[in-house]
């Protein structure tokens, strides 16, 4: 099964000057998935990506990409050979023009596809002779995406790929990504704090908070298993103490108790009925709610 994970981290830790950026992050990204790595700013998304690509050395734990140790020097080079990366700031060489930037990058990747390059140059309408520093934010993102997509990578790692883009440009970038992935055998691992874009393109998701994964799974499974159970009483709601597994969070507000469950909603409802509520409602939960309850709720 281990070979099926393109990315696998176990109890990954990273401390910067006494501040814990990663606190035992455990994550598995299956081959062929579009994996959304969701979290607030400062949750540890970028640090995780940097560890995976050998830019940051972990303080503890294990990080593997393609089964190779990310913190071992020769293995890290091999990981980067098989990976396309777009950083949050769309790091590119400002002093190069678009064509030089493309040729420079292509020189490092024997599997570089000139056909894809031509296709994306047309699609993105990138001016070959313009300096990178003169490109708009959107054009810069497109160029960063082009040099990541054309290298024949098996894994695409994108750190907040649409940050700073307007909605139209965001849609264009996401569509390009979706259509590329549909035509290639590749895994996409992208970080974001935009729930809508994760829902739009990801098939699996992990929510990270304060350096730990708090929720992970297939998006459809999460939608299927997470439920919000609302109990309304004709008196002050009693202090609940649910024993059934799957209770994520319980809120009590005067005559109402709200339970967020990750699994086994039926057992929780059975237990709740014993409290004597006047009504019990079970409703599906959107990813946004799961995110807000598991991340913001912990503040």
């Amino acid at each position, binding site marked *: 099964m281990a070979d099926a994970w393109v990315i696998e981290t176990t109890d990954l830790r990273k401390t*910067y000057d006494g501040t814990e950026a990663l606190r035992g992050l455990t994550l598995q990204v299956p081959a062929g998935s579009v994996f959304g790595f969701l979290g607030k700013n400062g949750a540890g998304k970028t640090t995780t990506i*940097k560890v995976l*690509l*050998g*830019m*940051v*050395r972990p303080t503890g734990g294990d990080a593997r990409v393609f089964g190779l140790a990310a913190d071992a*020097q*020769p293995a*890290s*080079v*091999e990981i*980067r*050979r098989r*990976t396309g*990366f777009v*950083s949050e*700031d769309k*790091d*590119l*060489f*400002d*002093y*190069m023009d678009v064509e030089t930037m493309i040729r*420079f*990058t292509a*020189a*490092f*990747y024997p599997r570089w596809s000139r056909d894809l390059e031509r296709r994306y140059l047309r699609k993105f309408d990138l001016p070959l002779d313009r300096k990178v520093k003169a490109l708009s934010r959107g054009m810069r993102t497109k160029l960063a995406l082009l040099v990541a997509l054309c290298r024949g990578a098996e894994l695409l790692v994108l750190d907040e790929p649409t940050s700073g883009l307007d909605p139209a440009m965001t849609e264009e970038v996401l569509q390009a990504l979706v259509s590329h992935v549909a035509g290639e055998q590749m895994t996409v691992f992208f970080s974001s704090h935009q729930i809508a874009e994760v829902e739009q393109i990801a098939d699996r998701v992990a929510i990270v908070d304060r350096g730990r994964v708090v929720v992970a799974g297939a998006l459809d499974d999460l939608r299927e298993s997470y439920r919000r159970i609302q109990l309304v009483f004709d008196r002050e709601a009693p202090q609940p103490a649910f024993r059934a597994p799957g209770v994520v969070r319980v809120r009590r507000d005067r005559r109402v108790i709200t339970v967020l469950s990750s699994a086994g909603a039926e057992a929780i409802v059975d237990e709740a009925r014993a409290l004597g509520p006047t009504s019990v409602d079970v409703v599906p939960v959107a990813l946004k709610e799961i995110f807000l309850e598991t991340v913001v709720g912990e503040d």
Partner: protein
Amino acid sequence: MLWYKSWLDTRWRFLIGLALLVLAAFGIVLYYPEVVKLLPLVPSIDTSSGLGRRIKEAAELQRTYGGYIFSQWFGQTPTQIGTLFAVLLGSGGAVSQGAPLFTLSLPVSRNRLFAVRAAAGLAEWLVLALVPSLLIPLLSPAVGQTYGIGSALVHATCLFVVGAVFFSLALLLSTVFTDFWRPLLLACAAAFVLGLAELLARDLSRYGLFTLMRGEVYFRTGALPWQGLLVSAALSVSMLYGAAMNLARRDF
């Protein structure tokens, strides 16, 4: 392609340095006839004060063309401007400049990134040290003088080897600081303090880096300062090694 990137990173510093040093070499050689006209005034310089004595010593040095070239060229211009450009070429380092995350995402080890950057910078510094110095023997016939290519090569070697110490220092500091300016300013400050110390402690100046850089021992005795050159080279190698280790360990 990494060589090409290193060239793009540093080309303006290199080209400006080369242009300045070449222009200075032209100027110094072509100005020699004017200096010759002033030489008859040397005996009239008042030597009762320390300053007068030093001016007279400097002027006496210029009675020969070799002395003039030493005092005006190897003793001054490339040592001062050259040190600045050696530091400039080392500043910025292998990764900090431009797009560090993009550079680090390439399938290249940090050691290779560093080796290419260091080698490209040293090659540029070698050209800065060599080309203007070799122009001196080529231009000298234009003012009716000759200057040995061998002497120019020895002085250029001293300049290169000692300049490489400042280059390596800047490169080392660039693996400690993430910006361009702090390594540049700190390495320049270190060079300034060393230069000042040599000026103030004249008894010890024969051990100084700038005395070695000028090739003063070679000029006065004709002997190559092997020990000084070896120590300087060892110093550069240790700093480059330290920089490579630092870069390999650093988080970005």
